C-alpha cells in the first residue's frame, strides 16, 4: 500500500503544475491593461507605467508564469489590485471561515445523510424511505442561494431567531451550515441508500443470513462496511462540491470566507486575488481527494493487501 500512496502523491505534482498553468493562462490572456482599467477616472500614464514595472506586468508571459510558480511555492500570490494587500494574507484570513463552514456542513451531511440512507434502504419503499428520499431530492434540487434566502426570510426576518448575515459567533454558523449541509446530505443519503441496496444483493449477505444473524446484524456487520466504500469515494468529491457551494453560501450569508473573496475578486476584476483564491481552493480540493484516496485504500482490504 505504501507504493500506492507514493504513486498518488507523485501524480499530484504535475496536476498542481497543470492547474496553475491553466489558471494563469485564462486569467492573463485577457486583452486590455488591468491597471489602466482600474484607474479609469484618475488615469495617469506615469503612475500606470510605474505600477506595471513594479508588478512585472511587461515581462514576457512565460517569465511571468515562472515567476508565479516560484512565488507560489514560497506562498506568495502577489498583491490584490483593489485592496492593495498581499493576496496570501487575505486568503489566510478568509480560509478559516470557509473551513469552519465546510466542516460544519460536512458534519451535517454525514450525521443526517448516512442514517437517512441506511434507514431508507432497510425500509425500502416504505413511508420512511419516501420521506427521506424526498428530503434528499429537495436538498439536491434546491438552488443553494434560494434556500439560503428562504432560511434568512423565515428564521431571520420573520421569526427573528437567527442572525441573517455575518460571522461573529456560532449562531451565525447555523443557517449557512444547514443550507450547505442539506445539499450535501441529499447526495450522501441517496448514495448510501443505493450502495446499501446494491451490497445487500451480494452472495456474502446470503452467507451471513445462513449463519443465523438477525437481519439487523446482517446489515450492521456485513453490509454496512462494504456499502461505505463508495460513500467514502463520494465524500472525497464532497470537498469540491462543498467548496463550490461555499462560494454561494458565503455570498448569501455574508460569511467572510474564500468564496466571498473570490466573488468580490471577479466582480472587481482583481486578477491576482482571483488567481490566488482559485489556486488555493483547488489545491485544497486536490489534497482532500488524496486524503480520501488513502482512506479508501486503507478501508478496502483488496487494495490494502495487494
Amino acid at each position: 500500500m505504501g507504493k500506492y500512496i507514493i504513486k498518488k502523491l507523485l501524480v499530484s505534482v504535475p496536476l498542481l503544475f497543470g492547474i496553475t498553468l491553466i489558471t494563469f493562462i485564462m486569467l492573463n490572456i485577457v486583452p486590455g491593461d488591468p491597471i489602466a482599467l482600474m484607474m479609469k477616472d484618475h488615469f495617469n500614464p506615469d503612475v500606470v507605467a510605474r505600477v506595471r514595472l513594479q508588478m512585472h506586468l511587461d515581462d514576457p508571459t512565460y517569465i511571468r508564469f515562472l515567476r508565479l510558480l516560484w512565488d507560489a511555492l514560497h506562498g506568495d500570490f502577489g498583491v490584490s489590485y483593489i485592496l492593495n494587500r498581499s493576496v496570501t494574507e487575505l486568503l489566510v484570513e478568509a480560509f478559516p471561515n470557509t473551513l469552519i463552514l465546510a466542516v460544519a456542513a460536512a458534519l451535517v451531511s454525514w450525521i443526517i445523510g448516512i442514517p437517512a440512507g441506511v434507514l431508507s434502504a432497510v425500509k425500502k419503499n416504505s413511508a420512511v424511505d419516501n420521506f427521506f428520499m424526498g428530503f434528499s431530492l429537495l436538498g439536491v434540487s434546491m438552488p443553494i442561494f434560494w434556500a439560503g434566502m428562504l432560511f434568512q426570510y423565515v428564521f431571520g426576518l420573520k421569526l427573528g431567531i437567527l442572525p441573517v448575515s455575518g460571522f461573529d459567533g456560532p449562531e451565525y454558523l447555523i443557517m449557512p451550515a444547514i443550507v450547505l449541509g442539506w445539499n450535501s446530505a441529499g447526495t450522501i443519503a441517496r448514495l448510501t441508500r443505493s450502495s446499501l441496496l446494491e451490497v445487500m444483493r451480494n452472495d456474502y449477505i446470503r452467507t451471513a443470513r445462513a449463519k443465523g444473524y438477525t437481519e439487523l446484524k446482517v446489515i450492521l456487520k456485513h453490509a454496512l462496511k462494504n456499502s461505505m466504500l463508495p460513500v467514502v469515494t463520494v465524500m472525497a468529491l464532497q470537498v469540491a462540491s462543498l467548496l463550490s457551494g461555499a462560494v454561494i453560501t458565503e455570498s448569501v450569508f455574508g460569511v467572510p470566507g474564500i468564496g466571498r473573496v473570490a466573488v468580490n475578486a471577479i466582480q472587481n476584476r482583481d486578477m491576482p486575488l482571483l488567481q490566488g483564491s482559485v489556486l488555493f481552493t483547488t489545491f485544497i480540493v486536490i489534497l482532500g481527494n488524496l486524503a480520501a484516496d488513502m482512506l479508501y485504500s486503507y478501508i478496502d482490504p483488496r487494495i490494502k493487501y495487494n
Partner: protein
Amino acid sequence: MSNFKKVTVNTEPDSSKADPVTETFWQEISRSLLKDKAAILGGIVILAFLLMAVFAPYVAPHDPYKVSLDLQFTKPNAQYPVGTDMYGRDVLSRIIYGARISLLIGFVPTIISMLIGIILGVISGYYGRRTDFLIMTLADLVLAFPSLLLAMVVMYTLGASLLNIFIALSIVGWAGTARVVRAETLSLKNKEFVEAAKATGVKDYIIMLRHILPNCIPQLLVLLTLNIPISILSEASLSFLGVGAQPPASSWGLMVSNGKEYMFNAPWVAISPGIAILSVVLAFNFLGDGLRDALDPYLKQ
C-alpha cells in the same frame, strides 16, 4: 396447519402480456418509465415548461421588459398573479420568459459538452497510448477544479453574458462524460465483435460509431439526466453571483439576486423565480431517477 392460501397455477400462456424477449430497448425503457409515477410527473412538468418557453409570447400576460415605476412592488393579485418587481415589471411574465433561458441552458451546453466528451472519450479509449494520455490529462486537470470556480474563471476571461455561460458550461462539463465513455471504450475495445470488425477492414471511425458508442447509450442517458439539472443550477448560481446573465435579461438566477434586497417588503420577487428553478430541476431529477431505475440492468454489465 393450513393457514396457507390455495394457489392456482397459470397453465395457459397469456398473450395479452408483452413477451419480454422480443421488446426493443426503447420499448422496455418506456414501459419501465411509465410505471414510475414520479418520472411521469417530472416529464409532465418539463413538458409544461417547454411549452411555456416556446409559446411565451402567448402565455405571458404582460411584457416582461415593460417598466412601470408606479406599479412597483405590487402584491400578487388577479392581474399580476406573482406581483411586480422593483421596476413594476410583471414577475410571472418574467418567469415565463425566463424558462427560455433556463431550458436552453439546460439542454444546449449539456449536449455540446457531452458531444465533446463522447468524441474525446472514445478517441482516447480507442487509440490509447499518447492520445489517451494527453486527453485524460486534460480531463483530470479540468476535473481537479471545483466546477463553479472554473466556470467563474472562464467567465472572467470571456466577460459576463449569457452566451459566455454556454461556452463556460460546455468547457467545464465535458471531462466527466469523457471519462465514462473512455472506460466503456476500453472495456469494449477488446471484445470479439470489435476485433472481427477490424479484421474485415472496417474503418476506425465506423467501428467507434456503430459498435462502441451504441453500447454506451445507457450510461450516456444517465449522464444526460444528471447534467441537465446541474447546468440549470450552475447558470442560476453564476447569474446570482453577477457573473452570468446581465440585466435586463430575465434569467431566474438573476431575478433572485435582484430581489434579494427587497426580501422584507416584497419577498415574492426573489422567492418565485427560485420556485421555478426548483420545479424544473426537481422534474429533471425525477425523470432522471426513473430512467436510472429503468436502465439498471444495462448498467450492470
